[in-house]
């Protein structure tokens, strides 16, 4: 029984991550009609906002020792972090909470990145064929990845959750779950809820939703839809970036993580149905939970290798049963 509960928790946790990554992607799909292969790169950039902030906070004063040497004969470097030097205990606290603090930095940064991307590149591709959108955004994703690699190398860089959330919660009767994963689950639910509410209950959101339905008519009504779409792209970038920041303690980030999540996020979006936010969220949770259960030994012993293919298998089945995914609308991305 506890095994089942734990796998449900795993599934929800994974699902939250998938849904959060897919949310921005489906927003861009639905509103701008752009196939954004650089979405994984935005997720990765978010993660590296956390890494960078941590690096900045732990910048060290380097003093070369006069007496001691390293194993290779150069003077030993004595390193003291500036922040602890200046702020003492408060500094240590700031470093400890560098991941949550990175959220604050990530919002304006990702918004800027998103707006710059949309204004500088993506907007020229609205009327271009999907194939060319794929080529240009894939090129961009490679370039962003390589830039990060240049600065941070190819190896994963560990980020720790704040000390207070480092351990795991014991719910009794064998159910133990890491704090940070629960934080991530609630965080993703909150972000998803906020984005949905924003689109549902604000005038801005109403216009955007109308634009998703029929862009030309909205334009004819004298509403500046272009500016709103720029903001939507920025919003999508922010959501992807925040997902990346919060994921760093679970998965030490490296420059390639965007590519690793790219295929998966597309599958989630399409299974959910093109142009449907709710669909993407539902698909994220569904795939997360099914993936967790498929990995149980009881299942793999009957169907070896099922955990390797479950996501794709589910995608095939759903797309065959429901032509437009879970909640997709007719006519979007079908030609």
């Amino acid at each position, binding site marked *: 029984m506890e095994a089942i509960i734990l796998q449900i928790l795993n599934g929800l946790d994974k699902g939250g991550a998938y849904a959060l990554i897919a949310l921005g992607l489906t927003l861009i799909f639905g509103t701008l009609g752009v196939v954004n292969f650089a979405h994984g790169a935005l997720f990765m950039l978010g993660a590296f906002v956390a890494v960078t902030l941590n690096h900045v906070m732990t910048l060290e004063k380097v003093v070369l020792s006069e007496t001691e040497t390293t194993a290779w004969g150069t003077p030993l470097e004595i390193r003291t972090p500036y922040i602890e030097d200046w702020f003492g205990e408060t500094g240590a606290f700031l470093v400890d909470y560098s991941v949550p603090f990175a959220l604050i930095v990530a919002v304006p940064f990702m918004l800027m990145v998103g707006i710059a991307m949309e204004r500088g590149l993506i907007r020229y591709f609205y*009327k271009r*064929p999907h194939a060319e959108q794929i080529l*240009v955004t894939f*090129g*961009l994703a490679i370039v962003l990845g*390589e830039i990060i690699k240049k600065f941070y190398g190819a190896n994963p860089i560990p980020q720790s959750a704040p000390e207070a959330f480092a351990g795991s919660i014991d719910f009794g009767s064998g159910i133990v779950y890491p704090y940070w994963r629960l934080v991530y689950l609630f965080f993703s639910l909150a972000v998803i809820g906020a984005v949905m509410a924003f689109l549902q209950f604000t005038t801005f959101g109403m216009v955007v939703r109308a634009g998703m339905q029929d862009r030309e008519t909205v334009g004819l009504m004298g509403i500046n839809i272009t500016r709103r779409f720029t903001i939507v792209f920025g919003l999508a970038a922010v959501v992807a970036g925040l997902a990346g920041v919060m994921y760093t303690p679970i998965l030490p980030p490296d420059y390639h993580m965007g590519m690793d999540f790219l295929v998966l996020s597309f599958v989630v979006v399409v299974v959910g149905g*093109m142009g449907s936010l709710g669909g993407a969220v539902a698909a994220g949770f569904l795939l997360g939970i099914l993936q967790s259960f498929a990995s149980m030994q009881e299942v793999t012993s009957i169907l070896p*290798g099922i955990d*390797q293919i479950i996501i794709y298998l589910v995608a095939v089945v759903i797309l065959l049963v429901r032509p437009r995914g879970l909640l997709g609308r007719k006519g979007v991305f079908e*030609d």
Partner: protein
Amino acid sequence: MSTATAAPVSKAIPQVGEPKATSKGDLMTLAIFIAVVLTAPIWAIPIGAGYPDLLQKFAIFGVFAIGFNILFGLTGYLSFGHAAFLGGGSYIAVWSFKLLGMNILPAVLFGTLFGGLFALAIGFVALRRSGIYFSILTLAFAQMSYNLAYSVLTPVTNGETGLRVLRDDPRIFDDKSGGYDGTLIGNLFGLEMTGYTAFYFCASVLIIAFYISQRIFRSPFGLMLRAIKNNQTRMKFTGLNTRPYALTAFVISGMYAGLAGSLMAVTDPLAGAERMQWTASGEVVLMTILGGTGTLLGPILGAVSIKYFENIFSAYNKSQLLDTFSFLPDSIAEPLVSVLGLFVGEGWHLTLGVLFMLIVIYLPGGLMEGARRVSAMLRKRKAEKTDASSGQTTPAE
């Protein structure tokens, strides 16, 4: 269609760089193509590509991209799972070596057939959907094939290590008696498939593949496929079921992929699961778009450029760069090398990414668009000269 922005793949791809679709023009293209392909070992030397392995890769990925273009360029169906057919073709070819012997004919034959059959099975299901739903279905099938080939199918595929021909394999038609030295190299009735021999074999296949694709482009069937791309709904209203046509195109391109996969095994008797990974499927998509979707020559150009970058740019290292620029004073050479160093060796991916962006931004329609612009410019200049008296210029297309 809910938004005007989600433009169909079809509309904006111009038919560029093609000589007029006359049989004479086609013959000219074919003749020039044959000449260029067969002289590759010579003209590739100055650009550093004049060695058998890379030339073989050019030809093999050329075949792969031509086939992909028959589906994507003509029908507009964007498959993200063609690597499965490539990998499948390779596995079957190597199994043919293992069981039947090192003659390459059965390997190529079975590899191609398998590509077709596999495509038939997947296409039959995936073509029930269109647009991005189709893309994701093909992607899902290919990823399942890849994941299984890497892990639980190891008895058949030899997993991570890759499937190879071993000395104690049955190879029933091989003469294993009497001093056979046991070199496990593919042969065509005794002609060993190594070096330039293998290149000329692949080149011949490429030429045939190109010829067939040219015929398909010009045939009524090709016209029908283009019609599917331009307006599927309208086609359906005329009472025509388009799916059999799309499926035929899918199977043909699957056979091309299987053929390319078996050629990979011919030049190098080894097959690995990574040939099925989504990155491999993505590569052929990129090749086709980079070269020019829907054009005859574009995909081959795209394949050649990507393989060239992969093999030549990755090979440079700092010390070679320093040698190259040793004629410059150190104060100039060193910063120059450190900037260029970002784009070669470990940075070759960056070059590729920048290239993708530049091409698609400045040359919508790919490399063939560039070729068309250059030729149009030349023609214009020529026309200006000759038509100077009448004061009129013929507009370039």
